[in-house]
């Protein structure tokens, strides 16, 4: 398959595909982080996670239109405002959903799956009624457009770099929040032993709601970042949901580090194969490999040693 390429070209191909894989990796990590918190820590399967992400994307879209129409002078920084609003909107919706639906279903994880699937249908149709069935894209500010030319064949897009930087920042933030801050300790305490956590004075219901809202909020930010590299449609969330669940399960549901490692493996192998095979075959092979490995090692790559 390497016939007709020089060594330098093959290197460049791998570098370019590797970079494309890194962008995919960023999207996976952002989506999977929220899911790892909700699914890994709380054990709730949120099939509407993709729709929370799309909510963030639509908030960004509205924000970009608003800035372009009313305050064009500040258009260069609209994205940061949009990201914050996306976090708030998705988080607020998440808290509402937790209160109305999820908290009644903590003992029935498979039923949450069905209920949140219903929620995702409703949200999809809501987006379609409000924004139309066609995909929408945002206008990037000037400083995010264009690319660096590293060598004469390797180009690096600035918006891709920006999304990666953002991912890094959010991941570190979430890591600090979960492992260093008081809130994270409470979350982990509640998930490991709900009764004991309640006994030492943690308001477990409140922690549940905040955790779910946080996971949804991160999904909103992911959606916001997603608009930088692709367009948004009402059903775009559904395309990613299975991959994201596989990323989380493959990484070992309880481990944030595992989630990142598995997002990296899956995205890199998929984008490397995409160059040589068709996109759909690359995806089939990647998913098959993941499912195969999960059959051999059901607990995922990184797993906590827990006594059951």
């Amino acid at each position, binding site marked *: 398959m390497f016939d007709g390429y020089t060594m330098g070209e093959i290197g460049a191909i791998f570098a370019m595909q590797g970079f494309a894989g890194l962008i995919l990796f960023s999207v996976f990590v952002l989506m999977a982080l929220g899911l790892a918190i909700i699914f890994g820590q709380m054990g709730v*399967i949120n099939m509407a996670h993709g729709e929370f992400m799309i909510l963030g994307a639509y908030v960004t879209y509205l924000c970009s239109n608003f800035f372009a129409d009313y305050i064009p002078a500040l258009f260069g920084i609209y994205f940061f405002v949009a990201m914050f609003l996306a976090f708030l909107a998705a988080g607020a919706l998440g808290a509402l959903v937790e209160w109305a639906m999820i908290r009644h279903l903590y003992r029935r994880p498979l039923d949450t799956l069905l209920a949140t699937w219903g929620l995702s249908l409703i949200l999809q149709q809501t987006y379609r009624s409000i924004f139309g069935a066609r995909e929408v894209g945002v206008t990037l500010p000037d400083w995010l457009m264009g690319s660096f030319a590293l060598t004469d064949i390797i180009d690096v897009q600035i918006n891709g770099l920006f999304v990666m930087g953002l991912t890094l920042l959010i991941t570190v933030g979430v890591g600090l929040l979960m492992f260093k801050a008081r809130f994270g300790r409470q979350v982990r305490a509640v998930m490991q032993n709900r009764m004991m956590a309640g006994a030492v004075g943690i308001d477990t219901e409140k922690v549940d709601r905040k955790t779910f809202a946080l996971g949804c909020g991160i999904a909103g930010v992911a959606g916001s970042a997603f608009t930088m590299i692709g367009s948004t449609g009402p059903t775009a969330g559904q395309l990613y949901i*299975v991959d994201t669940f596989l990323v989380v*399960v493959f990484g070992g549901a309880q481990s944030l580090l595992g989630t990142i490692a598995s997002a990296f493996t899956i995205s890199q192998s998929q984008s490397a194969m995409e160059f040589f095979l068709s996109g759909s075959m690359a995806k089939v092979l990647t998913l098959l490999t993941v499912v195969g490995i999960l059959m051999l090692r059901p607990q995922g790559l990184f797993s906590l040693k827990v006594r059951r």
Partner: protein
Amino acid sequence: MARILNMDRTQLLGFVLLAALVFLVLPLALDAFRLNMVGKYLTYAFVAVGLVLCWGYGGILSLGQGVFFGLGGYCMAMFLKLEASTPEATAIQSTPGIPDFMDWNQVTALPWFWEPFHNLAFTLFAVIAVPVAFAFIIGVAMFKRRVGGVYFAIITQAVAAILSILIIGQQGYTGGVNGITDLRTLLGWDIRTDSARTILYFVNGGLLFVCLFIAAWIKSTKFGRILVAMRGREDRVRFSGYDVSAFKIFVFCVAAGMAAVGGAMFTLQVGFMSPTFVGIVPSIEMVIFCAVGGRLSILGAVYGTLLVNWGKTTFSETFPELWLFAMGAVFIGVVLAFPNGLAGLWTDHVAPRLPRRLGGRPRPEAAQPAPAE
């Protein structure tokens, strides 16, 4: 019959009522077009009945039943397509005698795995054998490693995604996103006429009742009780000396086989098969048919399937925008408010008020089975 299945009078009455509805009321009340449509709905009921066993009783939620429905349907469709692509009928193609979509995709010879589907006996065998074998492989791999619950659901979902992407991607061998269309005859018998469709409807109904009897029989045996026990406390069943994984594999294969028969009947009645019946979305919809009917009720699954699909057709004919809202609300409502579906409503509210000889029974004291996890 009733004695073999350990049925009491109420259950028998339920079977008789459903049989009357399927074989008498619907064929008399509906025209050929609508009857064909109900026949299509009833093919989904095969999947729902399988899910009652697998999910309701066994507690194994599979989100990949569309895979087995699709495999069964594709096996049937391959046979019908080969029969429709005689060298005479396809004389205008650059390679006559192969299905039209292969010709469009520059495939010049029939792939090896299509060859055996010239034979009807092999096809009928494959309709059941291929999906069951596939389910067996998945089942052995998952259940022997004690993967269950949520993880199993996610992995079956991934399998559904993989298969539908594969079918769409391999256009030359599978017909791609359009599926296998333009199916005409079964051994020279035109399946597109109204009379043929009516006959197929009755064959379909008959097969559905065979599945219902199998399900009722499984439920009434010791195996059925072990399934329920496994759903409640899997470890205790294992400590009692039962091989839990073997039971799970078996019930998963039974559910897959039923789904496959439904898929094959779907192809025969509707006249095509496409990847839209394989992926994640149809697979989850099939779970909701079962949940609406009541995950613990074999007959309820049939009613649930009919009701949801009837609702889908009426809604999408009149208010296409509202359909997804309604479907979403059904998902949430059934899970939150009626975990035992229509059958639960019946046993809780209707049956206690019926006179005893019609099958009415006093309200059971706290006998309501807990919904499966």
